């Protein structure tokens, strides 16, 4: 104790106290905040909007404007709905790292609780599609084959036969759907992020979205099996051709060199 009190005038004492205080409040916040948002009453909702607004002003306002009205660097968020926020922030696309042809998927930097708060705030700016409930996107029991047909009719043009992704003009692209969660798949179809067209319930009912999600999960996820062996990226003849040239013909030429090097020798007499 004596040691501690002796150093209470130390120049760094204030910094230490500050750090302790910050750690304490942060810890307490982390411990209690999720419980707060879980409550679905009116006060929790307004609290979420309040918190979301704070997060928004720090992380989003520089491009989307202080009131979500949009600027020259980012579109207006009025009416995009909470589903759009949940998708963009939940897949790490937002906040964007840099301007470019397209904002890529990257590490998610907000917790789900913070994303919910941001979504609540953006949703409060104007009515838009809401974050779907698990019952809406859960592919359990959906018609996979029907989903495949819908996928080939509506999605394959850009995302490839099994959702491996593909190129669009000027450096834009349709991303791979591998490892995308059912919720995010649903939200993407609902809101049409970036270059994707949106498929609202009026053109693509909830059931069809479920079927598509079930199909994508069946052919392009950890659970998907590849009866033919290595799928070589699922990209079709280009990767197959490269494989045939490099490993097929390459191996055969190596074998030919080996055979030619081991020629019959004349008998020594």
């Amino acid at each position: 104790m004596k040691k501690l009190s002796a150093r209470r005038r130390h120049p760094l004492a204030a910094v230490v106290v500050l750090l302790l205080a910050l750690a304490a409040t942060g810890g307490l916040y982390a411990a209690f905040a999720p419980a707060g948002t879980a409550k679905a009453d009116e006060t929790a909702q307004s609290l979420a909007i309040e918190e979301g607004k704070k997060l928004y002003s720090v992380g989003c306002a520089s491009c989307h404007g202080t009131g979500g009205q949009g600027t020259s660097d980012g579109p207006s968020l009025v009416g995009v709905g909470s589903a759009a926020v949940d998708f963009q922030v939940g897949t790490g696309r937002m906040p964007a790292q840099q301007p470019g042809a397209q904002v890529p998927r990257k590490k998610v930097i907000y917790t789900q609780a913070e994303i919910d708060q941001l979504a609540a705030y953006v949703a409060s700016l104007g009515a838009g599609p809401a974050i779907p409930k698990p019952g809406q996107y859960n592919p359990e029991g959906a018609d996979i084959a029907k989903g495949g047909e819908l996928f080939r009719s509506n999605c394959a043009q850009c995302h490839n036969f099994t959702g491996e992704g593909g190129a669009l003009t000027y450096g834009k692209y349709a991303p791979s759907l591998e490892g995308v969660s059912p919720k995010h798949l649903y939200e993407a179809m609902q809101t049409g992020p970036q270059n994707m067209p949106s498929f609202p319930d009026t053109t693509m009912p909830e059931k069809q979205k479920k079927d598509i999600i079930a199909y994508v999960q069946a052919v392009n996820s950890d659970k998907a099996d590849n009866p033919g062996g290595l799928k070589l990226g699922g990209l079709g003849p280009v990767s197959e051709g490269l494989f045939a040239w490099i490993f097929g013909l390459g191996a055969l030429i190596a074998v030919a060199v080996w055979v030619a090097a081991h020629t019959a020798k004349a008998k020594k007499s």
Partner: protein
Amino acid sequence: MSTVTNTKKAPAGERIADWADGRLGIYTLAKANMRKIFPDHWSFMLGEVCLYSFLIIILTGVYLTLFFHPSMNEVEYVGPYVPLQGQLMSEAFNSTMHISFEVRGGLLIRQIHHWAALIFLAGMFVHMMRVFFTGAFRKPREINWLFGFLLFFLGMFTGFTGYSLPDDLLSGTGVRFMQGAILSVPIVGTYLSMFLFGGEFPGGDFVARFYSAHVLLLPGIMLGLVVAHLILVFVHKHTHFEGPGRTNKNVVGMPLLPVYMAKAGGFFFLVFGVIAVIAAVASINPIWALGPYRPDQVSTGAQPDWYMGFAEGLIRVMPGWEINLWGHTLVLGVFIPLVIFPLVLGAIAVYPFIESWITGDKREHHIAQRPRNAPTRTAFGVAWITAYMIMLVGGGNDLWATHFHLSINAITWFVRIFFFAGPVIAFIITKRICLGLQRRDKDKVLHGRESGIIKRLPHGEFVEVHQPLSQGERYKLTAHEQYEPAELPPAVDENGVERKIGRLQKLRVKLNQGYYGADNQVAKPTAEEFREIESGHGHH
């Protein structure tokens, strides 16, 4: 068995051979060919890779025909692959699904068949380039070169008709692509398309028609060409590289029986083994993932197999020009690629005849040249490959874009420019490299190989010790023939009358000088030069 007959009776093998000889006359045939000599070099086995993969394709193909139904009748899928259950599809697709999931070994055989096809075409490409760069297409082998080229060309279309048969979404897109190309032909395009598909695309006929072409017509012609190709190899005998004891009049190597029979037989199983391993490990054309063809559906990343990638590239990078005249549309954006496609392939096919016209060389050649000793030809070959490869990049422009994070438009422009500029650059660079290598050979012959040993002489000078080449090595580097460039005859003849020199002749002389002119080959060292250096003080 009595001992008397036993001594008189020949061994069983001999009796069978005798029996067969009496009826087939195999003795003379075998006598002439059993001791046929084949030279040893790994690059001479590329043709064998093609032959064996062709055999593997035929064998596996026969198995596939046992289960495949070449019909476009619509059926509902009830097989074990869940993501397609209940979908409507053609019987062709359905039976291919059946082969892949229910026939014992069906998927493996299908994959062997398809992988072998890709390797067959790749093998032919490399084999053709080997023959090209070693000048092995020269007299007397020009016809055989054409046979080989025809095999490659027909192989492309056999492959195309083959991968179209399952009637999956990818191949259906390819068939539509081809139909579009046919439609772009002025005047007759529509008629051709209607004739080929039996009506409007896709109709109900094309699978059955492609099937006869794929299993009967095209492979039949190819088999005939393969036999003719091999007979000509026997007739001409194989070429061999320069070396001591190897001349234009002999072949140095091993006899067909027993050495080459054993080697080639073993090599067949090695080729089969490699292809089978690949087919067992890596998936190819997974039609279950692609889904059945429907004209209203399409996927991104729809490319043909690699050997058609060149055609795909031409269409992809061609600007979408069209002319509308009197109510008719001329789709140049598709028709021009359709014209360029055979022109580029034809350029390599007719090259032997062009070269022999330019060089005026009508003698027989049985010595394979080293590519560096024919710089202009080598440069032309590399230029041709460059154009081909750049178009392959164009055919896969979307995958280049996504995998290298580039703009597809930038890639398309790159391909448009470098389809023309690339070959020119490649030509110049290759020629310089060849000439450089020729100079290096000359240096090696005259001064020996650099040993890396530095010696200090008594008076302080440092010299690198060069190791002289063996006589055999020197022979190898100097045995190639060098030609004198052609000259135009004097402008006036001996009577002072102006000579008429045709434009064609002027062109020929100009091109000939491009082959053999002063700047286009390095004079090989002469024996005098060598002796002069040898008689000196050893190093310099």
